[in-house]
């Protein structure tokens, strides 16, 4: 069971998805730097193994809730570049017709219930999706992504309590990237994050968030158990964001050193590590992977070009969708 994904196809898909996220973010950042992006956006680069390791353990029926740093989750759950870039640029062909933007991107077709600009704001939504699954006897699982900073929101403890009491099929995935905005996690989180979940009787795990296989193995096991009614579960994924808090956070040495960033990028990069594994295990050659990368790069370039040319929503859409029919 735990080995179900250890085959060439699954591994290559995980590699592909990680590279797709990195490539998406590089292009999004470029759009910002060239002043083509409305507003600000939060880069997921560095954290790819978390979203991919988890989402590859899910089906389209399974739901996720995402965060302000949500492009990675969106790609990992199956979204296409074109509709994503259109959304980031506020175009009508975006996943949300340009109305949501980066911080609210949702992709219902793949079970992504949406990014959220309220830190912790989706914890209730994810738990409620799991409650619905239980009530309706459906065996889908919901994963709630959130950051270390979001553990300071009281809502999390309220919904963990109910999830535990009612054995809901939800997995709380805490992406601990060491910072919330410009503050180190130690300064904002007392005690132990996993112990907090355990205190509610929730089985909690800590895992290396830069190791896509470790993340995926653990998640597949927990998802299978959650489907059988053994949930909820909690995972703390130790990871790192390469960029600033958002694309505009350039001079950040006052809160974290260049040396620290270099250490993570050089020695713990999830893509470099997994690529080395694929090559050393003979699953793919350097050339094959380069070709894959190039294909993804082209896909992104095309999508960006398409999105830049795409139309904005018509003015008449401004007061459409306030209420559902």
């Amino acid at each position: 069971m735990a080995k179900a994904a250890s085959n060439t196809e699954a591994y290559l898909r995980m590699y592909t998805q990680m590279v797709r996220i990195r490539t998406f973010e590089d292009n999004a950042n470029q759009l910002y730097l060239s002043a083509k992006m409305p507003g600000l956006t939060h880069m997921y680069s560095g954290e790819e193994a978390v979203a991919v390791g988890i989402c590859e353990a899910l089906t389209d029926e399974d739901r996720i809730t995402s965060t302000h740093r949500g492009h990675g989750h969106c790609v990992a759950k199956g979204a296409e570049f074109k509709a994503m870039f259109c959304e980031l640029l506020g175009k009508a062909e975006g996943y949300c017709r340009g109305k949501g933007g980066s911080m609210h991107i949702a992709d219902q077709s793949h079970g992504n219930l949406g990014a959220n600009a309220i830190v912790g704001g989706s914890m209730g939504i994810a738990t409620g999706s799991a409650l619905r699954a239980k009530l309706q006897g459906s065996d889908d699982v919901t994963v709630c992504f959130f950051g270390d900073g979001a553990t300071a929101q009281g809502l999390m403890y309220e919904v963990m309590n109910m999830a535990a009491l009612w054995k809901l099929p939800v997995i709380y995935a805490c992406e601990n990237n060491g910072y919330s905005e410009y503050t180190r996690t130690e300064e904002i989180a007392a005690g132990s994050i996993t112990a907090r979940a355990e205190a509610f009787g929730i089985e909690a795990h800590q895992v290396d968030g830069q190791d896509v296989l470790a993340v995926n193995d653990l998640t597949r096991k927990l998802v299978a158990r959650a489907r059988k009614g053994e949930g909820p579960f909690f995972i703390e994924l130790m990871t790192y964001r390469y960029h600033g808090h958002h694309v505009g956070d350039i001079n950040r040495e006052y809160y974290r050193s260049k040396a620290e960033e270099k250490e993570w990028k050089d020695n713990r990069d999830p893509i470099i590590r997994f690529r080395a594994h694929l090559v050393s295990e003979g699953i793919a050659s350097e050339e094959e992977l380069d070709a894959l990368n190039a294909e993804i790069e082209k896909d992104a370039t095309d999508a960006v070009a398409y999105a830049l040319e795409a139309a904005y929503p018509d003015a008449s859409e401004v007061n459409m969708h306030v209420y559902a029919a």
Partner: protein
Amino acid sequence: MREITLSQAVNEAIAEEMRRDPTVFLIGEDVAEAGTPFKVLSGLVEEFGTDRVIDTPISEPGFMGMAVGAAMTGARPIVDLMFGDFIFLIMDQLCNQAAKTHYMSGGKLTVPLVLRTNLGATRRSAAQHSQSLQALVAHIPGLKVAMPSSAYEAKGLMKTAIRDNNPVVIFEDKLMYQDKAPVPEEEYLIPFGQAHVKREGRDITLIGTSSMVQVAEKAAEMLALEGISAEVIDPRTIVPLDEKTLIESVKKTSRALVIDEGHRSYGVTAEIASRLNEKAFYHLDAPVLRMGAMDVPVPFSPALEDLTVPTPEQVAANAGRLCAGELIHAA
């Protein structure tokens, strides 16, 4: 026609809709065996079981958020919020999440849920259990707001709310749970955005919401004794608001007094009065007056609390002065 209490009306509406649609469920504190402190939901857990009538811990933001998630993925939750004052605890989930999801997703996600809660002072429950906070939610696009004024409206609006594909907030008057009114045995729904002319009149239009409809009706009776013919209108939903009916009435009577139990300043009456002023200005013989709860936290002491809510006497007095052409400023 049989008469039932407002409490029974709500109970019936929910039971009927739960029978009709298996995706409807109830969630809140002490809703199951206890049937809420007001006993409005008594008996439902016996019929529908604890899977569909769910007792929660005291976690209002938590279960409100969960209702949003359940609604987004195919269920129709009815959230029971024990006191309207607790709405402050769930504003983020209600206003940042539930209200905006349909729009932010470009129309792809829907959040069909009902938040039922209450309003009303003079129950000696003091400042944190007596507020009438409808103005706050009415200000947030994406929410609909219903304010039943009797058992009849309570049933018909609740059924419509449950079938609506949007988040709907229903404020019940907690002082009215035991009040009876004729309610048909047959099924009926009351469409949103349709005001009800409770009493026809010529000289002045009294527009009341929820608890204040009764107050307006009593005032109209008093005014009748003085020879003043008051029309009484209940908007029934303040979002959407049936402007048309209100405006037509005011064009006919030339005078209006708007009464709501929320605080007067920055409250519901300001919006209604403003729309009447904007759209019936040249028909008005006097300024549209507003009455609401005093702009004070609700005091516990009976000697003070009763001063804070408009009474039929005060409404009649203000209406009388308006009709007499006195330029008055209702406090």
